């Protein structure tokens, strides 16, 4: 078959859907290929949806998208084995529409999104794996699939095939993923009655809470844990760098089990019934690990391009925005009657640079490296902070000044002055 499309989008995740929707809406002839049984069947996400990115693509998404709860409270916990110190930010501002962040269940959300894509006019083919790119010399001219008669051609191929992006690697656009650049996250969904969730988390209506966790729960590995409230379920998970998992020899599910048993977490999930267990990779290499993003007849969007902001747990929004920008690049070129050559597609890179995507990724570009070389952020400090808090809060006849002195000493014993100063400096530079 020699059917030809304006664009082929590989993958029906957040990035692929954004790209396919935007192009189809603009009247382009779009083919989207997804290997899962249906869009969302293979996708895992925490999951928090950042409204802003989606709003720019589908302004009225709130009308019918399957949203769980809008978030009005953010907690950050630093845990050691017995305790945590934390901060909470809750604001009624977040409880006024239009809401800014929502929890979603990816399987349902992706189905909805895909319906939108189809309504916009794209041809969506599921249960089909793209096995290779069709090359004409240096140029990508289409894709090959695992089905008979499976070659399809297009002016441009957008690779939105997720973190593993086998395709990009096969075509040599991308080197092998390095274990230090990807986190392995495991996640469970626990079902609880709506009323239990609302009373446990002090929310009502459709409001919800997110808890971000760091510290000894990851056993010295670089990573974080999270807990989100959905309508009738909780999402709980933990992710650490793959390289750390390898080094420590801990099984991800064992880590999650330990985390669930933490005295501060256990009561929150008590009585729930686990419905779903999934593991997924998150690209965390940041700016420095990014592959080339476009070339002759191709662009990369979403996780495939390492577009994840690990510090702020943002991924889906970057995926959507990069998908949208890639799509807009194609639309512009079509309107100007220009071919999708590397030269013209370089506009995609410029659009990325001008957006929050690259700005944020650049801002945190040193962080992965710093964390990688300084595991004390995930071992020593949480413990010290929790002990400090305990010492200050416990009433035991010791005067506060002595307590402060003891705390200072404990920090100094664990890390020298130089170490402490160095750590502070590193963090400051990373976030700067």
């Amino acid at each position, binding site marked *: *078959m020699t059917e030809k499309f304006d664009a082929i989008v590989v993958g029906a995740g957040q990035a692929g859907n954004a790209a396919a929707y935007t192009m189809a809406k603009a009247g382009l002839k779009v083919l989207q290929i997804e290997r899962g049984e249906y869009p969302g069947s293979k996708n895992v996400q925490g999951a928090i949806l950042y409204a802003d990115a989606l709003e720019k693509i589908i302004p009225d998404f709130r009308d019918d998208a399957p949203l769980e709860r809008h978030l009005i409270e953010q907690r950050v916990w630093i845990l050691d084995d017995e305790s945590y110190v934390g901060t909470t930010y809750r604001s009624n501002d977040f409880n006024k529409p239009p809401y800014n962040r929502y929890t979603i269940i990816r*399987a349902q959300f992706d189905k909805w999104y895909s319906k939108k894509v189809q309504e916009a006019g794209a041809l969506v083919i599921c249960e089909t794996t793209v096995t290779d790119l069709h090359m004409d010399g240096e140029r990508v001219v289409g894709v090959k699939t695992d089905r*008979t008669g499976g070659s399809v051609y297009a002016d441009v191929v957008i690779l939105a095939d997720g973190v593993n992006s086998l395709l990009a690697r096969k075509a040599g656009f991308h080197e092998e993923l390095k274990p230090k650049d990807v986190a392995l996250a495991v996640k469970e969904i626990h079902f609880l009655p709506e009323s239990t969730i609302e009373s446990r988390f002090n929310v009502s209506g459709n409001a919800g809470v997110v808890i971000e966790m760091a510290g000894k729960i990851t056993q010295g590995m670089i990573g974080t844990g999270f807990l989100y409230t959905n309508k009738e379920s909780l999402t709980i998970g933990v992710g650490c760098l793959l390289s750390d998992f390898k080094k420590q020899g801990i099984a991800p599910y064992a880590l999650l089990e330990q985390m669930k048993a933490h005295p501060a977490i256990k009561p929150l999930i008590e009585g729930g019934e686990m*419905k779903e267990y999934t593991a997924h990779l998150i690209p965390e290499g940041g700016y420095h690990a990014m592959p080339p993003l476009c070339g002759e007849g191709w662009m990369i969007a979403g996780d495939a391009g390492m577009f994840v902001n690990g510090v702020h747990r943002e991924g889906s929004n970057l995926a959507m925005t990069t998908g949208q920008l890639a799509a807009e690049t194609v639309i512009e070129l079509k309107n100007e009657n220009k071919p999708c050559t590397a030269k013209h597609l370089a506009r995609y890179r410029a659009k990325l640079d001008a957006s929050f995507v690259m700005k944020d990724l650049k801002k945190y570009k040193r962080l992965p490296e710093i964390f990688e070389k300084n595991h004390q952020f995930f071992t020593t400090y949480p413990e010290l902070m929790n002990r400090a808090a305990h010492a200050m809060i416990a009433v035991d006849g010791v005067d506060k000044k002595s307590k402060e002195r003891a705390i200072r000493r404990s920090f100094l014993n664990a890390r020298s002055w130089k170490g402490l100063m160095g750590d502070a400096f590193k963090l400051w530079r990373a976030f700067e």
Partner: protein
Amino acid sequence: MHIVVCIKQVPDSAQIRVHPVTNTIMRQGVPAIVNPYDLVALEEALRLKDRYQAHVTVLTMGPPQAETALRKALSFGADEAILLTDRAFAGADTLATSYALASAIRQIQKDMPVDLVFAGKQTIDGDTAQVGPGIAVRLGLQMLTYVCKIEALDLEQREITVQRRAEGGVQVLKTRLPALITVLEGINEMRFATMPDMFRAARHPLKVWDKDAAGIEDATRIGLKGSPTVVSKVFAPTPRTQKAEIVQTQSDQPRDQAATLLAKLFTKFPQLRAEIGRRAS
């Protein structure tokens, strides 16, 4: 020749969990699949299509999402797809389901007479195996259930010969068209759709029929209203607590273990001694 295949979208029962406290089925996140037995029926129909240039129409009654099941059937090679969907169909049991499907098939007949109707052996959610026979009775079709082989089809004489699974053997039956066939599993293997098939399936316009389009004459006979049976209780089975009696011998020699097992078995279940004796001789 015109063949109608009835397919149903069902939750993948392998992935259904029961809430331990509320005893409710947790269907959220459970993927919907085409009832596996219906794919066997579809493949059998498609093989007839390949041999006799038949026209194959797939028919399903279900929620709008059942569209996915129809598109899958189209990708395998069905020519036409009809989705019966209407709030009024909700809550139907097998009697009401077969009424609705039979009405729809009558409607389909108006465009092109139907020679054969295929249904799965049973569904994996309802497991009743009654919808097929129900359709046959309502449409006055010859009924061939548990068919394990289509031996011959004579379109001139309008006769079909099949092998039908019976207790203790296989009946070879010959009957006249139009007939309804329910198909036993394992008699074929579903084909793999090609890329052009996938394109055709994705683009094919479905016919979506509500109860009027489906020609429902008596609205009291569909959906919950038309269902004689109601579920009065759903509950989780009490797990078997009896654990295996582990055969233990002093020696731990396989020979002794085997002998001890036989002794225990034949003492407690003397009927097995007879059974084995009878079958082995």
